[in-house]
């Protein structure tokens, strides 16, 4: 009876309602359009607050901030696809930055390589815990963050004491820009990561298996996927991206300290979620995460221009993240 009624209203729906429904379907099929719209509105609002912002130089600052966030969020997105999460990325990033600082006298190449190896190793340990021993990812990565914090707090006072600055090449990569000081170098790194991740998730076997393991672990297992290997690879990749993000952050700030990446943990999760990656696994794309990272960075610039204090900034930031997640959920929900 009720379905009958529904059908009838659909048949005689006035053009306005029909148009609305078509829009609704367009948005729910292509939620990235909505995110792009939000991004444009935010950029324009920020431009209205500070007209200087709508120049290439103003946008440069946002991109400078967005690149490390986007790279950290790449790891987070990959893990969320497998129903995981990494709460240790901020500490892994900081740890890798310390390694790079320690090895910088031996040349930028060695420093970068060792930092990436250490980051991947920490990620692999997470992967062993989650994939082989079935420890809950939340607990595993929280504990890993605690262990790294304890180790590096100690080491920062002993043999890593002089390792607080990184090689000039890393500094240029993280904070410098080219094309008449308009485009930051770190955006190039981010673009490389984006191409690899988007292509990898779509076209490679590992990419498909990440979705499969997250969508239905039992079905994936019955189909012959060795999920522990997939998880190990995913967590190692997340560690690698965390190290890369840490390197860029160290280059940007010019100095390494224990709080280096602290403020990027929650935004990395938020960027993935705003971008439509489901924390329950199997759903999400990296293009969404890129938009999420850009939105959060523009938001950060806006709050800075508004001269908001740390307290107000935190409240507004949290509220907007919540509102955006709600918007995304409402737009993509099918009745």
């Amino acid at each position: 009876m009720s379905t009958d009624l529904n059908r009838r209203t659909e048949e005689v729906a006035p053009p306005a309602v029909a148009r609305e429904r078509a829009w609704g379907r367009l948005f729910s099929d292509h939620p990235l359009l909505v995110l792009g719209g939000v991004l444009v509105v935010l950029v324009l609002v920020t431009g209205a607050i500070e007209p200087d912002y709508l120049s290439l130089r103003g946008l440069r600052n946002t991109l400078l901030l967005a690149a490390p966030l986007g790279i950290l969020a790449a790891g987070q997105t990959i893990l969320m696809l497998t129903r995981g999460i990494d709460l240790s990325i901020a500490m892994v990033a900081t740890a890798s930055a310390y390694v790079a600082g320690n090895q910088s006298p031996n040349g930028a190449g060695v420093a970068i390589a060792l930092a990436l190896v250490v980051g991947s190793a920490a990620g692999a340990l997470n992967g062993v815990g989650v994939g082989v021993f079935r420890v809950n990812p939340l607990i595993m990565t929280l504990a890993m963050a605690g262990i790294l914090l304890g180790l590096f707090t100690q080491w920062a006072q002993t043999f890593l004491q002089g390792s607080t600055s990184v090689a000039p090449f890393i500094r240029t990569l993280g904070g410098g820009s080219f094309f008449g000081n308009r485009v930051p170098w770190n955006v190039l790194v981010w673009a490389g990561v984006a191409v690899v991740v988007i292509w990898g998730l779509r076209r490679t076997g590992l990419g498909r298996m990440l979705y499969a393991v997250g969508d239905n672990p039992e079905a994936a297992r019955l189909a012959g996927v060795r999920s522990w290997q997939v998880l190990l690879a995913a967590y190692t990749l997340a560690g690698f991206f965390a190290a890369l993000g840490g390197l860029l952050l160290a280059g940007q700030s010019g100095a390494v300290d224990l709080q280096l990446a602290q403020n990027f943990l929650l935004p990395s999760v938020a960027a993935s979620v705003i971008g439509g990656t489901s924390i329950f696994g199997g759903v999400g794309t990296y293009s969404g995460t890129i938009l999420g990272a850009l939105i959060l960075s523009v938001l950060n610039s806006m709050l800075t221009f508004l001269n908001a204090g740390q307290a107000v900034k935190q409240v507004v930031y949290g509220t907007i993240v919540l509102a955006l997640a709600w918007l995304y959920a409402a737009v993509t929900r099918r009745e």
Partner: protein
Amino acid sequence: MGAVGQVVAGRLGGEWRRLVRRHGWTVGVWGLLVLLLLWYAALIPRFGPFAIASIAKNSLPTAYLAVSQAVVVIAGGIDLAVGSMMVLANCVSALLMEGQSFGTTVLIAVGVVAGATLLNALVGWVIVTSRIPDIIVTLATLFVFGGAALMVLPSPGGGTSGGLRFVFTGSTSGVGSNYWPSLVALAVPLAVLAAWLGRTRTGLSLYAAGSDPNAAYLSGLNTRRAKVLAYAIGGAFAALAGLAVTAITATGDPKFANAANGTLNSVAAVVLGGVALTGGVGSVIGAVAAGVVLFILKPILTAMAIDPNTAQVIQGLLIIGVMMVAGLLELRRRRAG
């Protein structure tokens, strides 16, 4: 006669096995706590009422947060904002209570608990209405409450009355050898909550909603209400943690690291305490013991002259170790079954 004895023994054996399966983990955690306490007693030169009082009062915030997290997790959620709710309650209460009489501070304390309950009920309502995952909503409120605490009290300050300090610490100056008030302050709310969760219809509905929300909904349970209720209770206990901090330190401190640490410890305590993060399994009694276990590691390692940073590493390794063993046992049981 022999046969009857065998049947009785068999039934007792079954009963016993059921008890072990249901409460084994909780008993194990309490056993671990007792062992650690004994170890601590053997480690320090003078183990007396003063040492007990120190542990009893200083473990209160961790213990309350463990309960707060446990209730929410049992109902199928997770509240990453418990730490910042504690900090917010700490800052609001310290600001309002400075220079007030005992009676006024008690009224303020009741008001803070009621406010936190309502605020977290609102968080629960947002979660069930928006259908955004709990972890995302509470990640956002972790920020919001932390920022609100900074707005209320931009720098450490405030105070409280001696009477309120006595309620939580057993001494009007916050330092003493009387440990009974701290124990009562934890045991009474805990006993009430545990009895309510295990014995009443509404309390059990939290378990039902957490273990299988669809089945619970189809059997006529109001799962939305159960979840909102769980968040409300969680808010009340987080506020108690904040009040305990106010009573112990006599100041409010809006530092965000306190909030983050509080949340981390609460999640670790819940998992160590045998509450499954998937919901519907575990007890608040186990979570409390795990919370105190996590707390007591610090004084033990300090007594062994171990650097606090190494202590943090050991704590992390211990948590991973316990979870790995639990994971392996679970795997073996599933293979055997």
